[in-house]
């Protein structure tokens, strides 16, 4: 090693870092790790790195299964049910992790503490269930920021008209109240809509949950009881109801999930769109989006309590409790989430979960103003991020709550009625699960 001049500090840092890294991939000759990984284009570029891990450690990886997120969830549950957990490494997600309490092992014992410290603390927090670190997050961190069409905010006639009507300047919104005003102002159904929202399944429940938090409410109270049928809850749900009533969102929005929302904004017919980082490239690519070149991104707005929305989730990898070669499995998990791996994924446009990789991607985007805008907005968005309540029954609760939310949005029930029924059903779910 060379210790000359300005390079020495850097080399020293590298030197200090190496012992851990050298420890980390380790040597596992003859070990075979069976893995179940999430499939799909966005996630698979990373798996090219597996061959390098095999070369470095002498172990083999055998990919048993590659499926999309929801299919994988089904498979894990089926495995637990049939008692056939004979594999070691699985893809995981912070929103789903609490559902498999006994499936995965605590990684704190297997990964050096200083390695864990290199991740963004909030991401590690979200990966921890009942005090156990059940997964290491990869560079597929998801939190939503606000995309908008820039040209709408540069039109002088619109600016004047808006100021006249609402009494403040037209600018990308900072609060959800402003979003409502602007969405109604921009809407011209059926050709153009102010905004849109995920209208079903966990998507709607998640959006409601973050709005509830931004309005100062809580989903589950300190005693573990559903508490979303509060004043704050009604305010949060009314946000959706009012936009729907005012026809400021497409009429079909209660059947929309992420794909329709993305396609909608890309079609250039939506003014403001709260959406995930995965779409940023798509929205600004003339081959896929009419809004290309006209897309702005700002941090997601705040609710009346001053808190920002920020429902978030992260993909990651876990090691099963029943794995006989946990060290090797943990090494693979570490490898897939280490700095080089995160750079590969973040380079493709997803958000990293390590501090150093955040710095790296922002530096990379220096020459690309759009990318820079996106990353800055999402980095700030990340500081407001919070995961879903750590309940094994989260998805099950979502499934009883969202039809009620839809009923309120569509006008079948009032917000209060809908939330009361939903809370009752959610309580029942928790009771059936022996929680209350």
């Amino acid at each position: 090693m060379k210790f000359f001049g300005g390079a020495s500090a850097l080399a020293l840092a590298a030197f200090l870092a190496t012992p851990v890294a050298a420890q980390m991939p380790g040597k596992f000759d003859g070990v075979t790790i069976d893995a179940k990984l999430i499939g799909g284009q966005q996630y698979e570029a990373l798996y090219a790195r597996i061959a390098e891990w095999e070369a470095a450690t002498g172990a083999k990886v055998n990919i048993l299964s590659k499926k999309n997120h929801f299919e994988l969830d089904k498979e894990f549950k089926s495995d637990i049910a049939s008692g056939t957990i004979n594999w070691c490494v699985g893809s995981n997600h912070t929103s789903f992790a609490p559902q498999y309490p006994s499936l995965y092992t605590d990684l704190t014992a297997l990964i050096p503490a200083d390695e864990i410290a290199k991740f963004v603390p909030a991401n590690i927090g979200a990966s921890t269930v009942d005090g156990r670190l059940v997964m290491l997050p990869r560079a597929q961190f998801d939190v939503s920021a606000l995309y908008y069409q820039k040209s709408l905010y540069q039109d002088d006639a619109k600016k004047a008209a808006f100021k006249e009507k609402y009494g403040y300047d037209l600018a990308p919104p900072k609060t959800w109240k402003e979003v409502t005003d602007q969405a109604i102002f921009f809407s011209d159904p059926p050709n153009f809509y102010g905004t849109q929202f995920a209208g079903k399944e966990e998507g709607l429940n998640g959006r409601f949950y973050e709005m509830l938090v931004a309005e100062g409410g809580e989903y589950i109270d300190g005693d573990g009881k559903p508490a979303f049928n509060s004043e704050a809850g009604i305010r949060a749900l009314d946000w959706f109801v009012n936009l729907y009533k005012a026809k400021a969102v497409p009429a079909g929005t209660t059947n929309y999930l992420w794909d329709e929302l993305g396609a909608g904004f890309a079609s250039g017919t939506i003014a403001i769109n709260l959406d995930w980082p995965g779409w940023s490239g798509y929205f600004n690519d003339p081959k896929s989006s009419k809004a290309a070149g006209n897309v702005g991104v700002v941090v997601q707005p705040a609710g009346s309590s001053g808190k920002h929305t920020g429902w978030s989730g992260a993909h990651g990898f876990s090691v099963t409790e029943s794995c006989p070669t946990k060290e090797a499995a943990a090494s693979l998990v570490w490898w897939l989430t280490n700095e080089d791996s995160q750079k590969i994924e973040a380079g493709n446009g997803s958000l990293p979960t390590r501090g150093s990789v955040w710095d790296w991607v922002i530096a990379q985007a220096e020459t690309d103003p759009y990318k820079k805008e996106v990353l800055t907005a999402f980095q700030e968005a990340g500081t407001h991020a919070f995961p879903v309540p750590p309940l094994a029954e989260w998805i099950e609760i979502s499934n009883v709550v969202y039809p009620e939310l839809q009923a309120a949005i569509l006008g079948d029930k009032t917000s209060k009625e809908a939330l009361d029924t939903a809370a009752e059903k959610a309580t029942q779910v928790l009771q059936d699960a022996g929680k209350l």
Partner: protein
Amino acid sequence: MRKLRVSAPVLLLMPAILVIAAVVVVPLILSFYSSFTSFRLTKPETLFVFIGLRNYVTVLSDPVFWTAFGRTVLLLTIALNVEMLLGLGLAMMVDRATRGQRMLRTMMMFPMMFSPILVGFQFKFLFNDNVGLVNNALQSLGLTDQAIPWLIEGDLAFFAILVAEVWSSTSVFAILILAGLLAMPREPIEAARVDGCTPWQTFRYVTWPFVMPFAYIAMTIRSLDVARAYDIVKIMTDGGPARRTELIWTLVGRIAYSDARMGLANAMAYFSILLSILFTVYFYRKLAAARTQIAAEW
């Protein structure tokens, strides 16, 4: 030698019995058992928590289930009838075509090549209220200036699902009825014409009785296969919004896997099986009756 002959049908049927027992009957017994437990996927030990008829009580006292049940019956009844009518019309038109029969028959079966989940995706995009083809076409033609919320309004969503279902399954009726038309002897029709029957009378009293058993076959096949609609509905609306298009199968699918409450889901599934069995037995009986009639006339 003699002994061997007696056991011949058993021998011949053995493979069929074995494979159906292994793939259908045994799993069915297992899921039947689990419908009496509080089985949750994520807690395998609950498979042995016997709770008697509680799941069934829960299911039968749940208005959500009964609404879904009623909607399923309604959807099936309308879908099967519409499919039969359209299939009949299509088959008669293709039968009368003088040229390009081979091509037409293949085209007629085109929707059968589509995997149901593909049909689901396809119609979800077609009926999208904002950028979907249907609304775009209606707006371009000046028929409406509204964005019609196809998949949202209860009746429209039901209609959209019906269209998808009918599109994907009319072929089965058409091909079977066409088979009937092709097999039909020409003389009775000629005779009817000579006797001065109108085309409607010819159809009503000569063609239809002949083709009817084929329609019942198609009905039987389709009612065996109704759960096929699950894939379509799952992708198009998944029972939503606000349960406006909930069918038994979407309900069962969600409770089984997403909620992981397999025991409860199986109790529901048994009801949907019962429904299929009723439909099937009904049509099979009709078929048997029509068959004897035809056999007598030939």
